[in-house]
């Protein structure tokens, strides 16, 4: 079904007409995915919430320009990516301006994650540690690699959807994603034992 006749298509049409309820519906429908995407990019619950809100604002402002050739979610991920890159640019600028910039502690980067509760305490603890290390490594990747890893592995976007969101040829997406995985693996090499299956 093309987007124009889908539920999203109708919602977007109503939003463009100024229907605020439709906008709220669109937010409710996509906020969880958007937040998760933002959190995996930032590792910071507050920044993730701000990014999510900022992305919805930008989407709202530009809805009339949304071409509807792609899914709304794909378009939203593109906006989120741009918001994230803008935020990082500002952060880098601030860090450049002040050597006293605040460094986030690991304790300050905790978000509520829905873990599998069927594990023993030891297993659960090891799993949590694995997830923490993995999240940290994702955060340590350069921004574009981070975006690619999160889009594919967290949001389960297809290569085609990623190509559309990032406006890149599929071949480029595949090769860059492979490099991002290799870079991630390299970051995790010192603790690789924890990830052995």
């Amino acid at each position, binding site marked *: 079904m093309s987007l124009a006749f889908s539920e999203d298509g109708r919602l977007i049409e109503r939003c463009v007409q100024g229907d*605020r309820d439709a*906008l*709220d519906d669109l*937010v*409710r429908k996509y*906020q*969880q995915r958007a*937040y*998760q995407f933002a*959190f*995996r990019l930032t590792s910071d*619950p507050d920044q*993730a*919430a701000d990014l*999510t*809100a*900022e992305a*919805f*604002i930008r989407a*709202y*402002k530009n809805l009339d320009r949304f071409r509807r050739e792609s899914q709304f979610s794909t378009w939203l991920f593109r906006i989120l990516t741009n918001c994230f890159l803008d935020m990082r640019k500002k952060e880098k600028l601030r860090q450049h301006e002040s050597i006293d910039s605040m460094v986030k502690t690991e304790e300050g980067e905790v*978000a*509520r*994650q*829905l*873990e*599998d509760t069927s594990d023993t305490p030891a297993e659960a603890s090891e*799993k949590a540690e*694995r*997830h923490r290390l*993995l*999240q940290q490594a994702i955060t340590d990747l350069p921004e574009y690699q981070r975006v690619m*890893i999160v889009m594919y*592995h*967290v949001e389960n976007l297809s290569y085609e959807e990623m190509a559309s969101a990032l406006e890149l040829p599929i071949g480029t997406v*595949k*090769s860059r*994603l*492979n490099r991002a*995985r*290799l870079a*991630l*693996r390299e970051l*995790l*090499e010192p603790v*690789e034992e924890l*990830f*052995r*299956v």
Partner: protein
Amino acid sequence: MHCHKVHDLFSELHEATIAPSLRQAVEAHLKDCLDCQADYEGFVSLYGALAALPIVEAPGDLSERISRRLDLETWEAKQSSRPQIGWLRVALASVAATVVIGTVYVSFTSLAGDGITAGPGIPLSSGEPQILMRDGNPVLEVSPSSQTRVQIFENDKPLVDDRVSAGRKAEYLLNRKGDRAAVVWVRVGEREPIVVIVPSGKSSSGAGAFEGTLVRGLEALSEGFGFVFVAYVRESGEVIQRDFTGLDVNDSLRLLLNDTGYRFTSKNGVVEIR
């Protein structure tokens, strides 16, 4: 096949999208190269670990936060389509010093969460509304921790109605350039904090203007405004700021006047300032 070429094909090999001929070559390489073999095993483990990352639950108030931002956005869009009210109309101190000067009320209304708090009589901490002197002009600086509405009134006439997002900084010039003192009254409450600003003329031009501003302040109090935060700009340009949260009018005035050298008495509802 070189190791780096094999690494380039890890994803395709794992996802089984690799061409059969390449697959054979890569597998042959992996059989002979222990380093690449270990790297590939690590790669596959990572792939599995990524798939097992748990869902991150969005905060319960996320919808609300987004809705507020959208409200603000639509509100600002409407505001920007209207003619702007110049803040320079607040520049009442340009009136001759002996003339009683109108009262300017500034109200902060927190749109989310708790208001700004501080203890009685203590200097304000960062993040709270502050009066700064810039090139001889008193500037109100607001950098709220939650979205905050800032309203400035001259008597009952609204001059500014603004909203400041959390983490942002907004500045409002309250006076024209010149050697003027300004008495600034601010009330910061839980939900409807009020700030009252009373610019005065040069203090050297006589006490009348200064007292007049206090009288206007008292009128404001009688209309239901409470004074909690008080800022006073000395002739020298030094800004004295105190939070009087929880104190009544008399105590607020007494404390304020302690800073200025004036004496204040209140008897049977009659206020006398000397």
